[in-house]
């Protein structure tokens, strides 16, 4: 009878434990059951890892992204020494794709974080202080958004002939408005809650209220917007580099590898297919991850 009681208590405490899961634990639990999102995460990690290890892999396989050999150009897939063939100058296509991934993914990753940082800082300030500052920021956002984004992006890149680093800066300077709008709206509603009032009452500084009390509460939204932002950035970078205004040859990116590919369509279709497929798959995966995370974080969906 005693052991029965203990077992009951045990069951009760276990139930309590389940109820007291933190938001992150609950989200993680949901995420673990979401097969498509996990698969997408695995794919993106794989691409990232392959790109990071590009120099090592190229060395091991004896291929080089910049070594030209005009006599062996347009080699087809699975040819000797070049698993994915060669391009119009006889450069190894596989190693160019790997190195291209470094640039494309690296730019998207860095720019997404920088965009988020700028967007959060400005958005929280605008939402928290309101008034004239908010009006000014709002006007600036509306103005910036009234210039067609791609026009502005192409214009600045064409003028500056960017390196990967400057391209990241350009993306961040032009891209923060979306995050700012999101953060500003959330801040407006959160700053009226009781716990912010409580923090104010015990004399917390505005800075502390903003970054210790408000920002952590929109963390899940920010992660989702970060991931979705990356997919947009990969598309933008590839379009820019394809047009010839982004990162320029000989540095390979998935976008600029497509620049001349149409002209060689008859001789080497893989030059046109592979980079495009990589871009599409990566962007597709980021969308899936973003959607999956949104569902995982959503408190309205049962765990």
């Amino acid at each position, binding site marked *: 009878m005693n052991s029965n009681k203990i077992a009951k208590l045990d069951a009760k405490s276990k139930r309590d434990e389940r109820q007291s899961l933190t938001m992150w634990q609950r989200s993680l639990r949901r995420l673990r059951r979401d097969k498509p999102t996990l698969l997408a995460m695995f794919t993106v990690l794989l691409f990232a890892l392959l790109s990071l290890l590009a120099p090592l892999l190229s060395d091991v396989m004896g291929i080089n992204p910049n070594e030209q050999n005009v006599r062996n150009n347009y080699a087809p897939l699975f040819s000797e020494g070049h698993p994915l063939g060669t391009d119009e100058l006889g450069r190894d296509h596989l190693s160019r794709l790997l190195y291209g991934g470094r640039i494309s993914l690296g730019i998207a990753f860095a720019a997404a974080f920088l965009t988020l940082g700028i967007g959060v800082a400005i958005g929280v300030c605008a939402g928290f202080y309101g008034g004239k500052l908010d009006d000014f920021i709002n*006007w*600036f956002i*509306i*103005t*910036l958004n*009234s*210039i*067609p*984004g*791609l*026009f*502005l992006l*192409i*214009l*600045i890149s*064409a*003028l*500056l002939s960017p390196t990967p680093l400057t391209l990241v800066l350009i993306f961040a300077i032009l891209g923060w408005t979306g995050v700012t709008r999101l953060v500003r709206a959330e801040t407006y509603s959160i700053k009226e809650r009781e716990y912010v009032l409580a923090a104010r009452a015990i004399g917390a500084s505005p800075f502390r209220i903003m970054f210790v009390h408000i920002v952590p509460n929109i963390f899940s939204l920010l992660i989702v917007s970060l991931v979705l932002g990356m*997919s947009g950035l990969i*598309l933008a970078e*590839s*379009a820019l580099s*394809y*047009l*010839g*205004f982004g990162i320029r040859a000989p540095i390979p990116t998935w976008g600029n590898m*497509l620049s001349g*590919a*149409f002209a060689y*369509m*008859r001789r080497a*279709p893989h030059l*046109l297919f592979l980079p*495009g497929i990589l*871009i*599409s*798959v990566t*962007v*597709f995966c980021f*969308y*899936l991850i973003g959607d999956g995370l949104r569902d995982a974080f959503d408190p309205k969906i049962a765990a």
Partner: protein
Amino acid sequence: MQKYILRRIVQALPTLLGITFIVYFIMLLVPGDPVSLLAFDPTLRQDERDRLARQLGVNDPFILQYLRWLIGDDWMMVDTNADGEVDAWGDNYGILRGDFGTSFKFRGSNPLTLIAERLGATIELNIAVLLVGLTSGITIGVLAAVSRGGWFDKSTRVLAVVGDSVPAFWLGLMVLVFFGIALPRDILEPMGIGNGSPLLPMGGRCPPVRGGCPPIFLRIHFLILPTAVSAFGVIAVWSRYMRASMLETINADFMRTARAKGLNHSQVWFRHGLRNAILPFAVFLGPTFVGLLGGSVIIERIFTWPGVGLLTFDALVSRDYPMVMANVMIASVLTVLGYILSDILYAIFDPRVRF
């Protein structure tokens, strides 16, 4: 209503002013000094160079230069020989009066007239895209909502995500490869159909003939590929929004009333549901239009469509700055107008909006 429209236009003025400021600021990033850029003459002597610099006012404070660019300097005199006295009238009318300088590439042309010549092509393409994209997007979205959970709903979801993930320029290239090369040469010709020439025009707005393009119904086949590629993204976005909006409307009270009073299925869905679900879309119309305008650089480049996008691209490649500035300004003005128009449309269609 008129008051609302007027207020909306007045609200747009600070935005337009801000745009001119940003565009002018970006122009300052142009490498090289403006005198040699504008003069285009390496044999220029130093004193001529100085004279030109003073006439252009390149050493003036930024704000003064900006104002000159904005409103011109034909009403004031400039000191061109640096003797402390003004001696010549300015000859710049300012962009507010349509003076963007002269194009570098097309010597002596006013960028605005060049843009005006090309604007028709861009608008023609984008109207086609909007027509195709909106009608199919809305139809697909509604059908997906009606058959929620069914195979049609699921496949449109996949279509939407794929439409978002595939870069438009790559899709354009793929379409060109398929209709221009793969289908006619590798599939149809071996079957004895056709002679391997492209099924649809690979680019351009009409056959290269003298005296401009024929009326649109004679060259509709030129529109098919660019419209299809460009509309794909629009369909992807709108079908999903439409589905969500439709599903939200289903639960509204008036829908229950409609069902309760015995209307049949299609009347409930289309007369009551669709008409309400479609309302928020007046708001999306502006951003969609803006997206298309921005994307026109890519679409027009791939299909060599002779519109404003291609003009901008060519101007950037040849570093024709007055042309670029004019293009960006016009595109921005169109954008602002697009936003205003979509707000007004919303106010007209939704009587619940208060002015």
